[in-house]
């Protein structure tokens, strides 16, 4: 049951082969067994999940069930969910019970899905290893000494370990794709504006985008069908017609033009990752695709540009955590300024403080033009590179991350090394394009390797088709980590 796709689980539920309560309990039991080691979930409230499962069973009984009705989904702890503690991986929100639902949560509730719990994450989504979480690091089920990636590390670990049927994530610079790659699962970050950001705690507003994480492309399509759609509460949410993201899954790939950016295969890429990605491209050629050599000349600037813009926005977005209205407040202080300083010094972790300081600096009088404005200009150049590239190809492929999962603590004292693990994913956020990662092999250490697929704006259905056809021909996505064998 745990290895079935969402479609198959849904069929089983609708055929009454299993109830949602039973399915939910199955996952809750696994969480009880494996979460103490993996630390993928921050909050599990079985009675809430089971109550939702009972409602879902009622929908299944009266014939109003939809595709995901009754299916247990893990929610990244960045989404506000009414009555649930919503921490964003921070001490600052350790005690915060959300009084309202994020749009994404509302959508899943309306679809009859079960909220299985809130997954661990890097604090305020700032990190690539899940080591910045106030609630401790998440472990990679393929090797518990290794990181799961981040910031959606809890979601990736939970999906890989079959601690949920599928999960939500968010991706500001690679936070869905990189952990998906490191944990051997599939994940897609849709075009910016496709999924409402309402109720999703902001890191860098112009880059943040929610998306699904699951075991295969078909599951991602079913998840996207629920998550997407215009929301008037988010001014950057696009007013587009609803679409069925699974509609093109079975299209043949004959004639598909795959662009391989030279810059993604240059120095810095591990040999084993390069080999897996090459092998995947060869597989695509067998499926009828043709390969085009392309260039993204400004992609090398993506990391520095990102580390100006994302901290700038974050420094402002995180100002609301001031100890005045909710969340953490330092216990002892002498006056208002002292309260602010102690609250924020104690409530935020090191990486968050680092980025707030960088962001404050680049927006400061006298530095704004040199950093923020300059970065915005380069951002446009990076986006323009993709526009040119998509004149020559239908999708772009390359590695998701330069290496397989590294060990916990390995990059802890070198932020720049950590930042470079998102070198291939960040440009996609800067351009607002959809990007995904699917498993395509294992590296020298036996850990999963991710293939990144980048599509043109709004081409999610095509990307899922491209991924699905590969998954029909290969079985990387079906492998189960030995530590949690299911």
């Amino acid at each position, binding site marked *: 049951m745990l290895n079935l796709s969402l479609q198959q689980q849904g069929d089983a539920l609708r055929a009454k082969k299993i109830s949602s309560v039973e399915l939910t309990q199955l996952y809750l039991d696994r969480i009880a067994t494996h979460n103490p080691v993996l630390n993928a979930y921050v909050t599990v409230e079985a009675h809430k999940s089971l109550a939702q499962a009972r409602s879902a069973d009622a929908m299944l009984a009266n014939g109003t069930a939809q595709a995901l009705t009754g299916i247990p989904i893990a929610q990244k702890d960045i*989404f*506000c969910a009414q009555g649930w503690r*919503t921490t*964003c991986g921070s001490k600052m*929100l350790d005690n*915060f019970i*959300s*009084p*309202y639902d*994020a749009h994404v949560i509302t959508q899943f509730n309306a679809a009859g899905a079960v909220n299985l719990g809130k997954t661990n994450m890097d604090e305020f989504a700032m990190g690539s290893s899940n080591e910045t979480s106030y609630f401790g690091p998440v472990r990679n089920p393929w090797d518990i000494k290794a990181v799961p990636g981040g910031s959606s590390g809890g979601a990736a670990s939970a999906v890989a370990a079959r601690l949920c049927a599928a999960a939500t994530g968010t991706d500001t610079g690679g936070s869905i794709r990189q952990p998906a790659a490191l944990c051997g699962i599939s994940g897609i970050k849709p075009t910016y504006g496709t999924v409402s*950001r*309402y*109720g*999703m*705690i*902001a890191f*860098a*507003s*112009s880059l943040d985008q929610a998306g699904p994480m699951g075991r295969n492309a078909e599951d991602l399509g079913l998840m996207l069908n629920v998550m997407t759609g215009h929301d*008037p*509460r*988010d*001014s*950057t949410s696009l007013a587009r017609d609803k679409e069925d993201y699974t509609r093109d899954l079975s299209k043949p790939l004959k004639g598909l033009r795959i662009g391989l950016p030279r810059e993604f295969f240059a120095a810095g890429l591990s040999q084993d990752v390069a080999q897996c990605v090459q092998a995947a491209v060869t597989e695509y050629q067998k499926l009828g695709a043709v390969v085009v050599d392309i260039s993204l000349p400004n992609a090398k600037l993506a990391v520095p540009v990102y580390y100006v813009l994302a901290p*700038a*926005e974050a*420094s*402002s977005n*995180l*100002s*609301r*955590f*001031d100890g*005045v*209205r*909710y969340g953490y407040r330092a216990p002892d202080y002498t006056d*208002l300024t002292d309260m*602010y300083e102690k609250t924020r010094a104690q409530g935020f972790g090191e990486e968050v403080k680092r980025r707030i300081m960088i962001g*404050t600096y680049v*927006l*400061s*009088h006298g530095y*704004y033009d040199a950093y*923020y404005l300059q970065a915005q200009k380069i951002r446009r150049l990076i986006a323009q590179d993709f526009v040119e590239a998509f004149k020559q190809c239908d999708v772009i492929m390359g590695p998701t991350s330069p290496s397989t999962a590294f060990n916990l603590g390995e990059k802890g004292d070198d932020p720049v090394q950590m930042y470079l693990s998102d070198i291939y994913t960040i440009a996609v956020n800067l351009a607002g394009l959809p990007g995904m990662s699917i498993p395509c092999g294992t590296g020298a250490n036996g850990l999963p390797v991710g293939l990144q697929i980048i599509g043109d704006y709004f081409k999610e259905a095509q990307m899922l088709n491209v991924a699905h056809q590969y998954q029909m021909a290969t079985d990387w996505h079906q492998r189960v980590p030995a530590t949690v064998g299911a």
Partner: protein
Amino acid sequence: MKWEIVIGLEVHTQLSTNTKIFSGASTAFGSEPNTQADAVSIALPGVLPVLNKGAVERAIKFGLAVGAHIAPRSVFARKNYFYPDLPKGYQISQMELPVVGAGALTIQVEPLSGNAKPYEKTVRITRAHLEEDAGKSVHGATQGLTGIDLNRAGTPLLEIVSEPDMCSAAEAVAYAKALHTVVRWIGICDGNMQEGSFRCDVNVSVRKPGEPLGTRREIKNLNSFKFMQQAIDYEVQWQIDTLESGGKIQQATILFNPDTGETRAMRSKEDAHDYRYFPDPDLLPLDITPAMIETVRATLPELPTTKRARYTNEFGLSAYDANSLTSSREMAEFFDASVSIVGAAQAKLSANWLIGELSAQLNRDGLDIAQCPINAAQFGGMLARIADGTISNSGAKEVFRALWSEGGEADAIIEAKGLKQVSDSGAIEKIVDDVMAANAEKVAEYRSGKDKLFGFFVGAAMKASQGKANPAQLNEVLKQKLAG
């Protein structure tokens, strides 16, 4: 050598939308603290702003009213600073690209000193931009604690910035009053200064003629025209005294204390925040199409300047009358409605009664023209009877009092009270003949040159007519008959 005063204003007008600029929470004044603070107002994690179109329409309306350029694209920016009543830790405002560009406002200045004559002046408006208000810190409600009320947080404001075009407290007050009139006139702000709907920051500096601008100090948050005048007078004198005694002016933000009549520095330039403005990524640029502008233009009423020109040119009213009649839109509309009843030829009569008797009575009862118990139709009905000679001026006053206290309609009151004046020449001649017959001696005295007795005959004849004789006609007949 004399000092020149240089003044510029920044006025925060609260826009009259029912809901906040970025959320659906109510903007009503005076509710229990934090009852109008929704998720967006208190800046819960994850909430997002959505721009209120009503606020944009009001900004456009203002821009059109002052002949300003409406930006086809303006941008919301975040102004970052920490304060307990600023829930997000930043205020959403507009910085580089405001919605309203350069415009101008013509003002009527009434000098405060001596015999100087009123004059007209045009003040240039630099820009006007949309922003959200902060909440309020409530000190002392609980011993030793400061409460935060976020009802006001997110209330839409239009900040209107002028050029430093004003040279006296009188001009600054005249500008503020003209602006106050305009925003109420076009219905974008209720203008309630006690409730903070119209707040003025005044930048003041002094210099010797021909010299570059002096260092300015900004008087914050003036909420009455009287205080504005007092604050400017005090501040100007303070700056002059400081400079003349060899001191220097430091740029500063200052507060006016109405109890002492003094200004005092709140913070100096050194303490000024670095607000780290940057475009708000949660909001798209505000695009305004020509069609939107035209839709708003169609809702714009005739403006005070246009009305004033019409009153002086078409009706031949004095500048003073035209100014008084356009002190508010309600006043002007009352006037227009009464003129439409009595006709343009009687515009002066209408103006006199409106500025005179009616305004005086409103003042006595502490009412606004909008609360006037007499409507324009009733008022016009009374004026029509003055104009056609049915009632005398004193009869009209009686009609007015009756309309004020009991309502009704002028014709019925005239009838009931028997106020119709006698204009029948035969009847007047008979009265005059009777009076002359009864006072033959005095007639003889008059005819022998005692002209002063004319007044006696007017009085006697008027009394005999029980005050109803048409005075002009009576005079005419008396003159003729007494001449013999």
